[in-house]
């Protein structure tokens, strides 16, 4: 489905994330909260788990070989159980010190709309799991899958900006799925690169697979994948945020079977999408524009 990256490019991308800044709202919130010695651990976790960059960095650290954990850690809260809130706090502060992602990268990719997309997909995937896949997948895993599924795009926009800009243009001008455009211009799509990174950081295998295959209709389905794909469809169809891959009505034919036939009825069962959107907007700092 996608050709291999050159080893040189692969190295460039895996080291890239070290230097990747976090999102403005989380950096600001973390700096404010940590000035108070009594800051509540749950509030800190709440901020970190809304920021894909912070989440990735924390999970990468906790899953490193030094801690030899029997099961891979897939949530920020779990990381707190293992490392303690003070260590997580200081890690977050060190990530905050790297700086903040600019709203628009040189590619024109709107980083805040990307965040809004990732956050709404994460929230909806968790809800879908609770309502349609209870016992088959972990809602928090679905949340993380939603938050990180398009992480490859942030890496592209930061470190392969010219090629990614081309992909974005092709997707819009030729009405092509973005991942196909990426394969043409970069040689690998964001799903492949996201999964490559997730694997490198020893994330749990189902999460790696979910990121890798979220655009691959031939991949073996799983409950987590169903929830992620369905959430992605819903959020793109409702135009919650934007990650460079506009909704195409013909995608409806690929709706996972477990949710029944009509996207409207799934949306109705998920509940209050506007509240999800408002929550995500307040964090992504997008306000009411979309």
């Amino acid at each position, binding site marked *: 489905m996608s050709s291999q990256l050159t080893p040189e490019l692969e190295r460039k991308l895996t080291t890239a994330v070290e230097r990747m800044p976090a999102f403005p709202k989380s950096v600001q919130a973390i700096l404010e909260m940590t000035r108070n010695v009594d800051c509540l651990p*749950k509030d800190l976790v709440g901020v970190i788990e809304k920021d894909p960059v912070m989440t990735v960095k924390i999970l990468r650290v906790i899953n490193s070989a030094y*801690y*030899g954990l029997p099961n891979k850690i897939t949530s920020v809260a779990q990381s707190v159980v293992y490392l*303690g809130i*003070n*260590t997580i706090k200081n890690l977050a502060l060190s990530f905050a010190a790297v700086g903040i992602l600019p709203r628009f990268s040189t590619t024109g990719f709107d980083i805040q709309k990307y965040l809004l997309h990732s956050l709404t997909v994460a929230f909806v995937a968790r809800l879908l799991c609770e309502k349609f896949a209870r016992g088959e997948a972990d809602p928090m895993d679905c949340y993380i899958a939603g938050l990180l599924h398009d992480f490859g795009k942030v890496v592209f926009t930061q470190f392969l900006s010219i090629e990614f800009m081309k992909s974005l243009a092709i997707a819009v001008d030729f009405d092509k799925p973005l991942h196909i455009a990426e394969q043409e211009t970069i040689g690998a799509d964001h799903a492949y690169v996201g999964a490559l990174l997730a694997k490198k950081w020893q994330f749990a295998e189902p999460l790696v697979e979910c990121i890798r295959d979220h655009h691959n209709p031939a991949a073996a389905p799983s409950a987590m994948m169903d929830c992620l794909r369905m959430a992605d469809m819903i959020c793109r169809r409702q135009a919650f945020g934007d990650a460079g891959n506009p909704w195409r009505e013909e995608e409806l034919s690929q709706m996972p079977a477990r949710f029944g036939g009509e996207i409207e009825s799934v949306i109705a069962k998920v509940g209050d999408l506007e509240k999800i959107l408002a929550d995500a907007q307040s964090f992504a700092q997008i306000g009411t524009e979309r």
Partner: protein
Amino acid sequence: MKVRLWGVRGSIAVPGPRTVRYGGNTTCIEVRGDDDALIVLDAGTGIFPLAQSLLAHLPVTAHIFITHTHWDHIQGLPFFIPIFIPGNTIRLYGAFDLIAQRGIEHVMQVQLQFSYFPIREAELKARIEYETLSVGVPVTVGEAAVTPVLMNHPVPDLGYRIECNGKSLFFTGDHEPHYNIYSPGEEGYDEYQAAIEQRQAELDAAIGAVDLLIVDSAYTSEEYPHKRGWGHGTFDSAIELAKRVGAKRLICTHHEPTRSDDDLERVFNEALARHPDFGCEILLAQEGLEITL
């Protein structure tokens, strides 16, 4: 195996008449394998009298395992006199420092800086080796095996399980039993609780039914609510841990620095009274206490 306690105090050394019976030095435990191999757990101020005791038997090879890098567990390191004497070998083991992104060599470099200590690392005469540990991966020291276990403290903290010819001991370093950061009913509570219980079970399994369990029991249960999140356990949590894993003997250590000997005995006896059915020997850590396993 032989165990000798050289420092049993938490946070800061507190010499003086109020602590003369149990001792004022910060954490340091000497463990000797059956082949007499020297394992030192932590380098608080208690490592200084230990060092004095070694000078009659030079050269020494010392395997020093650091639980974590808070001052009370490392501050004696530059005063471990064998590091200045040629012919000795000191091997320092400890956790990877996540924030500094450095291995355990960091601890020596930080302490031996010009402003804080007159001798540079390069000037140490003994052979100094460093080994940054991976959690769960045992290290062999003579006939003994030392396995690091990740504990719960405001900085990554390793407990150590030492096994030698069928005998075993576990030292928690500083450790606070996990608690839920959410309140009952809040979103995230159940999930966090499940993660804690799983973690607790993993920890209990890693500790196992040891012959000797040495546990951070800094606080009383009454004091604990004001100290939650500070990274220390209570007498009661230590006793519960010993019960769960089926330890044969328990030593309560990391005494609160303001606690006098009399107060220490009083709160200890109160805790014992709350656990009348406790099935194993339980002792207060005391400088000079020696146990043969």
